[in-house]
């Protein structure tokens, strides 16, 4: 991931014996296949960059948090196949599961605490003879955390922990789609703009300016209102907007710096075609920086997804944003800490995962941009 690719210092194997003395023969020869050499160089530069990255404790914190979420994402299908599978599936399915935790409620005229009181009209659904002051048994939704539901249930009686873990997968999926599309487009656009200069460059950069200026969230909201957007479509939209927008500008200046380097000139003189030059020399040198922007792209995608599904503008089965949205729609928000399991797991999950990718991006920035490093 070194920003400047130095001409690889060739790995030279031990001298081949038997050739000494003959002056016109080379006394050393390359004994390893090229791919092994490449791999070793790659590994060495990875180790060096990892060292730089690991100096930054904040980046490690980010990686650690991402790892925790990854474990959650992987564990969910396993749990659904084992402990939460079979008959338990009806209880623990994040979308269509249901579990009525039976609790005692006091019948009252006007409910002040929905977790222990029930209005007369509602009580008569279960017990037609219910009177104010009676204590009746009633399934509780949302149910507070118990050994059965470690994070309680949501207002529709579904297991919050299962929802939380299930949504992790969606977040990673969306982040990856958005990041890959961003990087693919931005690298291509940036390299082409830098390499062809002139009109192409000017045009692509004006497009980038335009996109940068457009308020993304309002536009996504309008799009989400007109169409039914799926998760992957959202990823692609974010990827396209970022790829043609800000990231393209940054990668273009990087590609510009690369395309005037001696080794590109050398390749040009050697008669490489334009596309060959772009793909073999410019893009590989711009890629490290695009990885960096991938991280910021993931952050953005996760936040945007949460916001859109919070407003109900995304066609998604279950997501962190949706979980908050449901809690709000059912009027549980102003109860704050009383129903903490409805508010905090999902809200913090979005925040932490987005922050973790952002922190990793910052730490990578310090590896790629030496000027940011501490001395």
């Amino acid at each position: 991931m070194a920003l400047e690719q130095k001409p690889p210092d060739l790995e030279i194997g031990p001298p081949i014996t038997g050739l000494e003395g003959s002056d016109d023969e080379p006394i050393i020869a390359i004994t390893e296949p090229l791919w092994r050499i490449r791999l070793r160089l790659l590994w060495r530069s990875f180790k060096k960059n990892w060292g730089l990255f690991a100096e930054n404790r904040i980046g490690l914190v980010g990686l650690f948090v991402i790892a925790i979420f990854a474990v959650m994402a992987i564990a969910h299908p396993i749990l659904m196949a084992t402990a939460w599978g079979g008959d338990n599936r009806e209880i623990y399915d994040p979308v269509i599961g249901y579990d009525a935790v039976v609790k005692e409620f006091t019948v009252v005229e006007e409910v002040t605490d929905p977790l222990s009181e029930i209005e007369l009209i509602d009580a008569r659904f279960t017990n037609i003879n219910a009177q104010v002051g009676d204590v009746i048994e009633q399934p509780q939704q949302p149910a507070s955390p118990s050994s059965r539901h470690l994070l309680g249930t949501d207002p529709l009686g579904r297991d919050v922990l299962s929802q939380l873990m299930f949504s992790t997968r969606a977040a990673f999926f969306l982040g990856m789609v958005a990041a890959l599309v961003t990087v693919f487009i931005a690298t291509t656009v940036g390299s082409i703009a830098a390499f062809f200069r002139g009109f192409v460059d000017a045009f692509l950069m004006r497009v980038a300016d335009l996109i940068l200026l457009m308020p993304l969230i309002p536009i996504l909201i309008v799009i989400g209102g007109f169409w039914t957007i799926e998760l992957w479509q959202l990823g692609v939209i974010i990827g396209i907007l970022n790829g043609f927008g800000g990231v393209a500008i940054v990668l273009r200046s990087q590609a510009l710096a690369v395309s005037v380097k001696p080794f590109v000139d050398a390749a040009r003189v050697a008669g490489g075609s334009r596309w060959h030059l772009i793909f073999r020399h410019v893009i590989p040198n711009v890629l490290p920086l695009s990885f960096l922007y991938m991280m910021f792209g993931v952050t953005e995608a996760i936040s945007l997804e949460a916001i859109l599904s919070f407003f109900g503008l995304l066609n998604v089965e279950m997501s962190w944003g949706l979980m908050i949205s449901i809690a709000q729609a059912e009027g549980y928000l102003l109860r704050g800490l009383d129903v903490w399991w409805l508010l905090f797991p999902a809200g913090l999950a979005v925040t932490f995962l987005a922050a973790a990718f952002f922190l990793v991006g910052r730490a990578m920035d310090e590896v790629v941009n030496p000027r940011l490093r501490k001395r």
Partner: protein
Amino acid sequence: MLKFIGVRLIQMSLLFLVFLSLLFFLLQAQPGDFSTQFLDPRIPPENRDLIAARFGLDAPLWKQYLTYMGNVLQGDFGVSFQRYPRTVVSVITERLPRTFFLFTFATLLSYYLGFVLGKVLAWRRGGSQEMSITLGGVLLYTVFYPWFALVMIWFFAAYLDLVPVNQFLTPLRWRDAPFSANSVFTSIIWSTLLLSIGLGLALWASRKPDNETQRRLVKWGGVGLTVAVFLAFWMPHEQRTYATDIAHHALLPIFTLALVAFAGVMLITRGSMLETLKEDYILTARAKGLAPKTIRDRHAARNALLPVTTSFVLGLAFIIGGGLITETVFSWPGMGELLLASVLTQDIPVAIGALAMVGALALIAHIIVDVMYVFLDPRIRYQ
């Protein structure tokens, strides 16, 4: 200078035209059209065509486009579906000042606080502080904003009961108010605008005199005078209690939006300050024997301000998006809330009008910052 502003204005107008065109095609690309969406499916096809023809929907696309652009440029965004027969423009003009108010105050507050804190933090950087500041800043910056706003409402409004829960005003108090909420609101905006201009002038004038005591006199005298005039205007004012009601409601949304935007500003300022502090002219300033505070404010922070100003343009979309969410979550009846509500109720003319307005707002803010930048950085003044 004027030429620069002129060129910028022309560029931005062109950009706005492109933006409007994109909106038109966005409209066109949406599934179905007006005639399938809003007409009773039992209407026979001939009549349907007739209605479509009456609305010009049978014309070729380019003609529709020209009509649309022509109308839009004359400020005609059509009629709201939900609030028929009010025009989109009248709905928007009612909402615009409220958004402007929220946006301006939150932005000024967040940039001011973020800049001051970022500057101080960079000045006395330290190991343990480094980690917690960055973590805290990044968490605030990436926080799931609608959720954060809800938690803020719960904490400050429901739990601590410091501010009213929601809305723009207390309906009960306004039931037989002798004036409309908007007229009170307009007075608030104008008076605070004049207040800020007065404060700005006082600070500017205080840099002129030669010695320190005079400078301080001008500064505090100017500030005191402006504040006194502001209070003298409002204290006896008949709308005062109503104005304080609105201000009371505005407190939490402004604070919440500012808090989140503040984190990004602080991180950028701090980074930019740390870069600036490595510059040679800082060493020169120290060698001249200047006081640390002078070096920090006059030399380091003044230069660190340049990247922060640039980042404002990039952060604009972020703040506008945040403003929209703020309005929605806090039921603050501004442009953002209008946009979301119209999207959810399929009030397409209003949605498009609101989006165009939001885009215009972004462009105007961009131009203002561009012009400010020219004043801040002499290196680009003569180009």
